[in-house]
């Protein structure tokens, strides 16, 4: 049984009439890299701020280990934050910024200096200690913010969209860097982001949030391969969703065609559902379909992007997107207007809730 570092029990946060976080419960095991993913306004940052102590929950309990910290101010919590704005102290040098928390904790000067140097080393900023934050680039400031939090060896490190201000290339690099550092120090990281790729790259566990609630919690593969709601299916990558009814382990689409479903994807569902299939898991071939085994359609649009070709196919069960890997040399499989057959492995399918009227 792994130890739990952060535990939220029925946590709710209201700002006046608006409910930012709605009855969220979760457990974050020690040493894991946990991501909260969702669009802006989904409550992920508010949840993080309640763990950090910057907001008090309206209801529910925040526990660090076994300690109830719901009403504890930030300076009494064994938690540190990397802020979205970095919030580096402009009047202090890099090493004084990094040593700020240690000084507050009364760590002796000599030990402080050693630990600050170690922390700067960890984030590849050795030799930058005497500079002021404004003399550093955005990426370097980000590293200082990280070092300033990590040096305290907190129980949990909170990261509030820490890479949001960086350009794409630097962001990619820092994602891998953060992952490396997390594995090196073994501290529990709780990371908030709206970038699904970032969450997938770094996190062991992802909580996908929407409208103040957790839609689904799981590992990256699980979330991508078996999303449980239409929101998750649409937020992580692209999905084709085909409306129908569950009948004897198959989904019967509106036009009456039966589509096979992976048995373990059915869960406890019945009645109106939508069958999901990822565009890259569909194979596309010219000509008409052998009856019953697949879906036939007409190519409406296609876009050639080199490594793959994207098709939009009109079928009897609705519009379906296909990513066809251009693995073999030669001509395109299909042109707009041509008849095609789409096939896929039923194991690659998933089910989400039926369409709400």
């Amino acid at each position, binding site marked *: 049984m792994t130890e739990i570092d952060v535990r939220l029990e029925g946590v709710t946060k209201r700002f006046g009439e608006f409910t930012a976080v709605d009855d969220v419960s979760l457990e974050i095991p020690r040493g894991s890299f946990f991501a909260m993913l969702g669009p802006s306004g989904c409550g992920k940052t508010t949840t993080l701020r309640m763990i950090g102590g910057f907001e008090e929950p309206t209801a529910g309990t925040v526990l660090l280990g076994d300690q109830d910290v719901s009403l504890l101010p930030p300076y009494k919590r064994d938690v540190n934050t990397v802020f979205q704005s970095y919030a580096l*102290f402009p009047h202090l040098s890099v090493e004084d910024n990094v040593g700020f928390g240690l000084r507050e904790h009364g760590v002796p000067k000599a030990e402080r200096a050693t630990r600050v140097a170690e922390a700067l080393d960890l984030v590849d900023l050795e030799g930058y200690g005497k500079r002021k934050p404004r003399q550093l680039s955005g990426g370097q400031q980000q590293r200082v913010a990280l070092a300033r939090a990590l040096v305290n060896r907190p129980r949990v490190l909170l990261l509030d969209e820490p890479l949001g201000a960086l350009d794409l290339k630097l962001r990619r690099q820092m994602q891998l860097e953060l992952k490396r550092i997390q594995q090196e120090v073994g501290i529990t990281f709780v990371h908030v982001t709206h970038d699904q790729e970032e969450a997938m790259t770094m996190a062991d566990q992802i909580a996908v949030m929407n409208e103040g609630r957790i839609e689904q919690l799981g590992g990256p593969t699980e979330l991508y391969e078996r999303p449980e709601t239409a929101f998750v299916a649409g937020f992580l990558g692209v999905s084709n969703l085909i409306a129908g009814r569950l009948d004897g382990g198959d989904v019967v689409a509106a036009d009456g065609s039966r589509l096979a479903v992976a048995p373990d994807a059915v869960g406890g569902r019945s009645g109106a559902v939508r069958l999901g299939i990822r565009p890259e898991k569909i194979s596309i071939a010219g000509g008409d379909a052998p009856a019953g085994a697949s879906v036939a359609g007409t190519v409406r649009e296609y876009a050639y992007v080199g490594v793959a070709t994207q098709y939009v196919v009109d079928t009897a069960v609705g519009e379906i997107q296909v990513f066809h890997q251009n693995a073999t040399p030669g001509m395109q499989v299909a042109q707009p207007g041509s008849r095609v057959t789409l096939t896929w492995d039923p194991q690659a399918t998933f089910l989400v809730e039926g369409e709400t009227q």
Partner: protein
Amino acid sequence: MGYLRRHPRAVPYLLIAPGLIWLGLLFVVPLYYLLSTSLQSGDIYEGFRQTFSWSNYSEMASQYRPQLVRSIQYAAIATLAALVIAYPLVYFIARRGGQWKSLLLVLLIAPFFVTYLIRTLAWQTILADEGLIVGVLRDVGLIADDGRLLATSFAVVAGITYNYFPFMALPIYVALEQFDGRLLEAAGDLYANPLKAFLRVTLPISLPGVFAGTLTTFIPAMGDFVNAQLLGTPKQYMIGNVIQSKFLVVVDYPLASAGAVMLMALILVGVFLYARALGTERLTG
């Protein structure tokens, strides 16, 4: 325009020329006359001659030392008082003022639309022997039954504090208004309680405002003579009163000039030491 195109190097000089002429005519030339007058001797009836005698300075330093020392004391106390009153007040306005910020700031400045003289005379009424404040203080026994506020050092310092208050408040307000409140969250996150966060983050970052405020208060307060004249007695006179009377009453220009130069030199040295003590690197960020 043709000239400028043929001589592009002249452009910067032409641009700073108006400022230089202004500075020359209105600062350097008067300063020169002040310095040269301070080294003259004679009197108004027989005329002043350039004698390059330092006696004016020694006379100022010996005969009017009490007024000089008093100026430094009064100005320092008034500056400190203004700082202690202004900082919390503008902190509240800048950080908690919300939508009322501008209104509160206008209210703070509003009294200063009234002329300096009237404001100081108003303090005569406020601190008058038969006024409300003195009456109450006498009744509760905080001052003796025949005790007064007017015509005391307290009245003069209070007047100076009040009159230069905006010069203290506004620079600090600007510094605190620009202060990024998220830094306080970061300080809290790094185990600093609110008091420590203020001492280690807010205060040092607002220090340039405090520096500017104390200077713009202290420097004119040092040379002030109106408050001592209207709210005090000759026992409260400052170096400004001496200079004023030497210039306009006694008409001893050399002695008055020596006093003015000494005051300037004192302030210059004081500001220099003050800036050194606070650290120029911290002040310029």
